[in-house]
């Protein structure tokens, strides 16, 4: 399925994920889910793991999905998607876009072995991870994607470990396409989804999706926070095509991490009377490492 550059860069708005869902105001994941659904089009099956997305989008009798939707357990969205793909193959039907979707908990912690298996077996499935950096659905518990310093209900003094680098782990499986994206640049996000769907084999897209409730910011700041995550170097934007890092988004003007941290309640304890504590310097160091590593 070769697509022209014009088609890839076109913005899609088909409302395949419609209004009426129960997400909080300014939810980054709801926005990301719609952008992904619209980019992938009607010929798509969504296999969604348990989590916020599944809870707020699929209550009976008025689901928000206008494409076939399959809810699975917390851990096995990738395995279910693999099964759907195998069934289509066995019935000799298709082609159809199969997208497994999950939050950061189901991707990096609970469902990791299913995803790893799916990548390893080489199913033609796109896995989309909505990264909101904690278990938001169950009450903001720490996950292995929670960044250094962030306060969650299980790390009230701030998280002591670094975030797991899932995109690189996925890429090390030797899959053909890995990309990172944020909700603020919808053109880029939709282009990556369309690019991924045009490639045969397992694909992985990692989307930073701010959670106003868990991150402690006002809903209107969701897009701005994503923008700052990119411009500080905390969340690098790149694609890994057949093991090669490419299309790295260069930072136009580098921003210190304080700007990113100050907007969010989960990092509030890092500033005592407006003055940053030593942990801020550590977070800046992470951002600097990213900038150096990906040549942002």
């Amino acid at each position, binding site marked *: 399925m070769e697509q022209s550059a014009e088609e890839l860069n076109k*913005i899609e708005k088909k*409302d395949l994920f419609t*209004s*009426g*869902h129960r997400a*909080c105001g300014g939810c980054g994941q709801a926005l990301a889910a719609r952008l992904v659904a619209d980019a992938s089009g009607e010929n798509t099956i969504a296999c969604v793991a348990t989590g916020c997305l599944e809870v707020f989008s699929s209550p009976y009798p008025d*689901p928000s999905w206008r494409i076939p939707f399959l809810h699975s357990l917390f851990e096995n969205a990738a395995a279910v998607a693999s099964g759907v793909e195998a069934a289509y193959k066995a019935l000799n039907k298709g082609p159809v876009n199969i997208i497994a979707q999950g939050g950061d908990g189901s991707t990096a912690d609970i469902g990791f072995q299913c995803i790893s298996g799916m990548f390893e077996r080489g199913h033609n499935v796109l896995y989309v991870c909505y990264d909101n950096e904690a278990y938001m659905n169950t009450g903001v518990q720490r996950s292995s994607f929670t960044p250094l310093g962030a306060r969650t209900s299980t790390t009230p003094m701030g998280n002591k470990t670094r975030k797991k680098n899932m995109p690189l782990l996925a890429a090390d499986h030797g899959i053909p396409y890995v990309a990172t994206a944020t909700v603020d640049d919808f053109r880029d996000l939709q282009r990556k989804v369309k690019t991924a769907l045009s490639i045969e084999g397992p694909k992985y897209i990692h989307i930073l999706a701010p959670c106003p409730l868990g991150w402690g910011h006002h*809903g*209107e700041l969701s897009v701005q926070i994503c923008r700052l995550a990119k411009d500080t170097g905390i969340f690098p934007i790149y694609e890994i095509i057949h093991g090669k890092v490419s299309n790295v988004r260069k930072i136009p003007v580098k921003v210190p991490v304080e700007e990113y941290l100050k907007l969010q309640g989960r990092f509030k304890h890092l500033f005592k009377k407006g003055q940053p504590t030593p942990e801020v310097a550590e977070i800046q160091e992470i951002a600097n490492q990213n900038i150096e590593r990906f040549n942002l």
Partner: protein
Amino acid sequence: MEKLPLGLVIDLNKVVPYKTGSWRTLMPVNIMQIPPCTHACPAGNDIRGFLRVLAEKEDYEQAWHVLARNNPLPATCGRVCPHPCEAGCNRRDFDSSVAINCSERRVGDYGLEHNLEHKKLVSGRKEKIAVVGSGPAGLSCAFHLAKRGFKVKIFEANGEPGGWMRYGIPPYRLPNYILKQEIDNILRLGIDLECNVKVGVNIPLDQLTREYNAVFLGVGAQKGLGIDVPGKDAENVYTGVDFLKQVNSGKWMEIGKDVVVIGGGNTAMDCARVTKRLGANVSVVYRRTRMEMPAITAEIDEAMEERIMFRYHTNPVKLVTDEGRVVGILSVQMELKEPDASGRARPVPISGSEAFIPADTVIMATGQAVDYDGIDVQTVDNQWMYTNEHLMTSMEGVFAGGDAVAGLETVSLAIGQGTRAASAIEDYIEGHVESSLAQPPVVYSRDLNTYYYNKQKKFNKEAVSIHTRLKNFREIYPSFDLKDIIEESKRCFSCGLCFHCGNCYMYCPDSAVKISPSTGGYEFDLDFCKGCGLCAKECPCHYIQLTLEK
């Protein structure tokens, strides 16, 4: 037996979505606001309006109609206005302001090239109105009244209409044919014009107030004031006003080799640059420094480019005469002390610093006053006309505007006052009370989300080389390219009005922004909007704002 589906099946066509709009405490609204350019424009031009038409439709004709709705003299203003709009432009805080003045000139010229005509709003009212003076204030007032259907007659003291634009502004800044075309276009609305009639001298003002329902005085400030020094009555000493009037009437002036212009205002700059083009060595003598000069900055810059000598801190004490003709001026150096009543530094002479400057002609451009000959209205400090808040003078039914009221000001301010006076006259005749509704708020750059704009270089007008332009009185800025101005119009931020960027439409996590089937614009679906404010935050031009839920 009928085969039943396994489990529950939802028919998506019959789904009634859950209305999340009930969660909302804040709601988004579209609020159209005044952009700072229009706010800063004394004539109140719809700048955003015509720039958006250029940028979106690339339609010069429509842009001209948008612009000419308020301002009947766009080609003139595009040449002579010191463009306070560009100083107000929000883009200045981003890279540099939009070249509004150049765009206005190009749109105005397009209107003249294609003979576009003003449209009348209503026709056939029987009330008659007399407009005294055909300067920018008078023309603007007559234009707006004629559009509203009144019968308007303009009385002009000079041989040709245009007032100070015709007789004061030299043709290298404003060519006569441009002004004439724009005035003819205004007169085509059915306005009568009678030249060579000076109200108060040839025809008494009382007669006008009796014969007409209302009178507008736009007489300007066309009496030149000199300074009181010995020798000021010599025959080769002129006031700036008289000098410019004679030159612009086409009279040949014998000015000799050395000319001294006294003063630092726009008239002084015009006199200096005109005499330079007549072949003289010109020096401008001013008591203070360039900082305190009241002239338009661009005018001073252009005068300096044209090799005009500026003598600052210099005050003439005596004009040295020989057989009734000036041969030079005796001047003294000044130093600046604490500010005086006008806020400018007070010059004090330094003793023993007298110097002699030779001169074949001396032009004193040191002030202008209203010619009150036969016009008996109340004044402020014996200088400018008194008007109330509706621009009515002390005489019932006599309105006034322009330089005679505001002091020495710009063409655009006079146009603005003419516009206001036209509304006031209509209200006066109809017996209405002037509407005093609050204006929408102004958008400033702190309200904008400039992330979505790209940095782009400003359009720069290029002047003819100094060598060429000093040889004649032709315009020093040649016409601009239509395409360049379209590109420039795309730099407009469209502050306070939607320009269909689609951010709200794409960013709404609830898909609660829809495309309106009737207008094609964006509208909020308040059944589903949760009031998160993402659209308002990411709206580049501050058109979307949050208010309390109703």
